């Protein structure tokens, strides 16, 4: 627990009669990308808001970087991109990043230096003087990432960072996040894109008010791998074969074939359906 960047223990959140989170316990270790997956209304954003200290849990405990997330000093060590968030449309790209640095307690010199470095790194240098509302969705998301990184945070929270982006812009954001991962940053990512979680996350929590399944993508797949999907390219047919018969079955195939574990999407649909 001491080396956890985030630790939640038995978190409950009610909005009046409505239960949004039920007994949620999750952990994030240094350098990990952890993804929260779940359907709409599963309480992912509510949980994330409690983790970055916007709202308090009704019951249970949350620790971020060893302290309560509502502590201002802890917030200054985090970088957050909330859900459906836009940069200040009437400020320039530079001003958006610079003033976020100032709000996070950086001196003028530090904020200016970090902003310039980030604009260069995120390929926003040519657009530094452009008003943010004139940017495309993908570029706005890049500005938000720069705003989240300007204080060189130890922990980054991204609530559905690629929702509404076209496939190319999504890939761009993925590349950025993977680069941050290579730098050793710890990230909490909510998404309902399974491919995104599979591509980026070290560990996944399936959430439907409570944690219904967790593990690394391969562990989760492994747990549901009693039936394999076999595609026979010589005939173009798809077969579902039990684990103990798989060797025998593939030996009987004449041409090229592919053996796949069930996809994360198959598992997600199965566990969420069973939980509802």
């Amino acid at each position, binding site marked *: 627990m001491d080396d956890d960047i985030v630790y939640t223990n038995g978190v409950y959140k009610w909005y009046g009669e409505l239960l949004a989170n039920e007994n949620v316990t999750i952990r994030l270790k240094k350098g990990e990308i952890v993804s929260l997956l779940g359907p709409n209304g599963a309480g992912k954003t509510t949980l994330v808001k409690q983790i970055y*200290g916007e709202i308090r849990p009704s019951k249970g405990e949350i620790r971020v970087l060893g302290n309560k997330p509502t502590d*201002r000093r802890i917030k200054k060590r985090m970088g957050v991109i*909330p859900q459906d968030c836009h940069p200040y*449309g009437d400020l320039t790209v530079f*001003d958006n990043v610079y003033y976020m640095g100032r*709000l996070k307690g950086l001196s003028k010199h530090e904020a200016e230096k970090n902003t310039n470095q980030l604009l260069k790194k995120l390929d926003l240098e040519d657009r530094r003087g452009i*008003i943010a509302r004139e940017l495309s969705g993908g570029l706005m998301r890049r500005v938000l990432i720069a705003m989240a990184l300007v204080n060189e945070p130890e922990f980054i929270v991204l609530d559905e960072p690629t929702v509404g982006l076209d496939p190319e812009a999504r890939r761009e954001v993925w590349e950025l996040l993977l680069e941050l991962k290579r730098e050793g940053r710890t990230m909490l990512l909510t998404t309902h894109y399974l491919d995104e979680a599979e591509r980026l996350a070290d560990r996944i929590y399936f959430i439907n008010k409570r944690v219904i399944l967790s593990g690394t993508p391969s562990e989760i797949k492994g747990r549901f791998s009693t039936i394999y999907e076999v595609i026979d390219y010589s005939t173009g047919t798809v077969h579902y074969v039990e684990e103990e018969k798989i060797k025998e079955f593939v030996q009987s195939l004449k041409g090229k074939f592919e053996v796949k574990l069930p996809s994360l999407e198959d598992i997600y649909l199965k566990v969420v359906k069973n939980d509802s």
Partner: protein
Amino acid sequence: MIREFGSLIVMQFKTIRAYLPAFIFFSFFFPIGLLLMLGSISAPTSYTFIISGTVTFYIAIGTITSVAQTLAAEREAGRISLIVASGIPREIYVISVVLSNGVSTLIIVPLFILIGVIFFHVVIKSVLFLVLALISSTFMGSMMGMDLAFALRNTVAVNQYSSIISFVLSFFAPVYYPPSIIPIPYRYLTFIEPTTYVSQAINYSFSGSFESLMWVGGIVAFTIIFLYIGRRLMERM
């Protein structure tokens, strides 16, 4: 925290640039046109009410409507979450919005007073009462705008109702004339409209009457009520 608050204020003022044409029209040309038009068709005995009524209308638009719409837009764009996540308390962010709107409203008011002095020969006997009336009214209007923004979840509804309420409170309340003109029992209804207090407090300050302070007392009472409601609404967010 003071440094961060200063940055917030600078950010808020920088964003005003984008609304410069609307700001110039509604801050200068529209109220000046309204003042001169009303002045040309009114008796000299009404001149002080034309000034106090137009200033009241301007404060209603500049605070109730403007603060409500700004906060609703900030919430919809996720920026309240963004700022709270950066370690700035929600209340401080709201105050920065309120303050920047309030200041940009108040800085124009001397122009209206100047027009009153030059064109309508209005004499201001108590600058202190006038300043008190203006500052308390601006703060009260801002609190009302904040309540509207947080009470309604739908931004379109906030935009519509904040405009409707500002116009209703400016033209269906005794702001261009004294409440005594309205027959009883309807007169009592005007006392639940905060703009009645704003216009009367400004008007009495021109004559230097202590009655201005009595009306300011009403404004302060409304401010406390709106602050309490705002506090409760923020806790609910």
